[in-house]
């Protein structure tokens, strides 16, 4: 780039090329980025598998298979495909099921390995090698079972975000929301998904600090611009609501208002949302579910989208039952004056 071409300070001149190789090595490429751009990129980081049960399990299996003493030895059973470990990674929707299965797998392997170690003390080298191969095979069989379960929980590998979902109309509850949040006005209120700017604005207007979260990039980007995020009482995070809830400390929010995800996730996902919401709301605060009327849901959604979503809305009374089963005994069903979104409000008592 010649000097006259370099009309922008971001561009590197040819003379800089000699040391530009250090740019990617020593400088954080995200340093100095505005908050909204950082948030956009950090959303990708949250897709990294490191730290998940699945990641640790795969790593342990690899270490077992690649241990120096067994490297290169023929397996006693060779039925699994070579790319077993590269396929069928867990999606968020199936993580809970997987977690349970992996726990069982881990117990099996632990018991098996403990026995193998004890027996090894009395075995010859050849017998020990056979035992190692058997352990390896056992782990591969167990892992294959995980793969099968995983594929059955999400056979199409769909993400709800890939489907064209209608925006949940929560306008009927804009006026009521500040009241729900006022019970613990000393703490921020979490709004998980950003269905309506008016709801967030009403909360902020009442003096609340608002922690918004949404998994749709375009919604977050628009909200960032609309709410002047970073300089006011509103913060917006680009993430799945359940993932964001899991990052929050216990009793750190005065109120949690959930919509969207509570309708479309499967029952396990719904229960996880309730459990996490209950955990992060401080005693005296409210968990609020804005849930779509079942008939309206069926009528409003494209049939393909409706069929492929992992879940559908629960009836408000069913929600109250679920809440009670998860420790939120005191809840109320509020019918909307207009529209098709009900509110189920539960106070957190510990």
């Amino acid at each position: 780039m010649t000097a006259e071409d370099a009309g922008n300070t971001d561009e590197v001149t040819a003379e800089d090329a000699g040391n530009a190789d250090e740019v990617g090595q020593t400088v954080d490429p995200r340093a100095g980025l505005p908050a909204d751009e950082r948030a956009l990129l950090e959303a990708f980081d949250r897709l990294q598998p490191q730290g998940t049960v699945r990641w640790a399990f795969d790593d342990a299996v690899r270490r077992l298979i690649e241990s120096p003493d067994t490297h290169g030895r023929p397996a006693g059973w060779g039925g699994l495909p070579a790319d077993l470990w590269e396929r069928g990674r867990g999606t968020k929707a199936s993580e809970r099921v997987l977690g349970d299965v992996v726990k069982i797998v881990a117990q099996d392997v632990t018991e098996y390995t403990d026995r193998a170690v004890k027996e090894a003390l009395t075995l010859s080298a050849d017998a020990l090698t056979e035992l190692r191969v058997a352990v390896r095979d056992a782990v591969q069989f167990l892992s294959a079972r995980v793969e099968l379960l995983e594929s059955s929980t999400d056979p199409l590998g769909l993400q709800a975000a890939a489907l064209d979902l209608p925006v949940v109309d929560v306008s009927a509850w804009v006026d009521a929301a500040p009241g729900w949040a006022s019970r613990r006005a000393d703490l921020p209120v979490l709004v998980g998904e950003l269905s309506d700017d008016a709801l967030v604005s009403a909360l902020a207007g009442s003096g609340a600090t608002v922690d918004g979260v949404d998994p749709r990039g375009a919604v977050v980007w628009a909200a960032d611009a609309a709410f002047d995020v970073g300089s006011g009482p509103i913060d917006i995070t680009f993430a799945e609501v359940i993932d964001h809830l899991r990052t929050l400390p216990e009793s750190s929010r005065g109120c949690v208002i959930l919509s969207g995800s509570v309708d479309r996730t499967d029952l396990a996902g719904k229960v996880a949302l309730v459990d996490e919401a209950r955990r992060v709301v401080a005693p005296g605060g409210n968990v609020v579910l804005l849930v779509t009327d079942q008939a309206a849901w069926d009528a409003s959604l494209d049939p393909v989208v409706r069929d492929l979503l992992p879940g559908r809305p629960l009836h408000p009374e069913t929600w109250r039952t679920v809440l009670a089963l998860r420790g939120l005994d005191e809840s109320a069903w509020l019918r909307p004056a207009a529209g098709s979104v009900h509110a189920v409000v539960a106070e957190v008592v510990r």
Partner: protein
Amino acid sequence: MSGIHLFVPMLHVRDAVGEHTRTLRDLLVADGVECRIYIETPDEDTVDETRPYLEYEDDALPGDVLVYQMATRSTMVKWLRDRPEPVVVNYHSLTPFTYFAPWNNWIARHQVEATLELRALSSTAALGIGVSEFDAGELRASGYQEVAVIPVANVRFPPTPADPATVAALARRAGDGPRWLSVGRLAPNKAHEDTIAALFVARATTSPGARLTIVGSPTEPNYARALQRYATRLGIARSVDFVSRISDAELSAHYASADVLVMLSEHEGFGVPLVEAMSHGLPVVAYASGAVPEVVGDAGVLLEAKGPRRVAEMVAALLGDEARREVLVARGRSRPHELGLERSGSDLMAALRAIADRSSGVTGGSNQASPLRPGAPLSH
């Protein structure tokens, strides 16, 4: 007859190191040099042109030179270090393990081991050859005494003609907006997510109809899947195409059909796609990391920061300025010649012959007129 033999952990087709190795083999054989490729792990696509490396012990002849193509770890390194023949390390850059650690602990550990192997070979290697000054710097930092710079030998001149059927298919798919292209393995150091984020911003601001095609094999499956999920979450999955396992002619069709190559990789030992794009007359916007600045020179837009908003703006500015784009395209077309890529093969052969001559005691040895190009002499 003694020979110059090539060692590579795995020989892949449509892979930068694999194609470089095969090209070098073909050049040496065409020049009358005995040359075989030895591998650690067979690839079914190339199994007929390789031998297990331990078989070399039966094939060895006095005067042989062994060339190790290094880009990852291999059990053959310890074996090579103990061989009596002179060993040349043809270095293709090791991706720092930190890029892989969040995605694949297994690969990350391999990269750590590879770094140790690179150092281990430095004490016995007759020569280290980097494919760029950037890589040569890493060789020197790893303890190599004799280091040369010779670019990759597998860039085709002239470029492979574009496949007409693919060109037509891409034209049918194209909308009104600019067509971004990114070429490179789906590996974390390539930072394809930054390109996707920039496309997202471009579509929200400057170029609502912009589309992106990413051509590259899914080296790290977790990362590859995350890229697709990321595009979905951003709501632009239908505007991002992932393409892999295509022929040279099909790749040329992508270069011919795109409006701009956007490459935001954070660690590049050379960057073959940059040269390919420039050869095809495609303007380049790239992040100035690794060897990218020395490869692109003044023939593209180099960025020292790559926030998505900035990248989107720079791409839009370039595509909106016809005169500037023409200047960069013209410079790009001559860039491969400036880099001397058409003579890389002969330079590489000359360097290897010099090592062979030196080890067999031919008068002059490496003190003869340097087989390496001016400006990249053996350095001590």
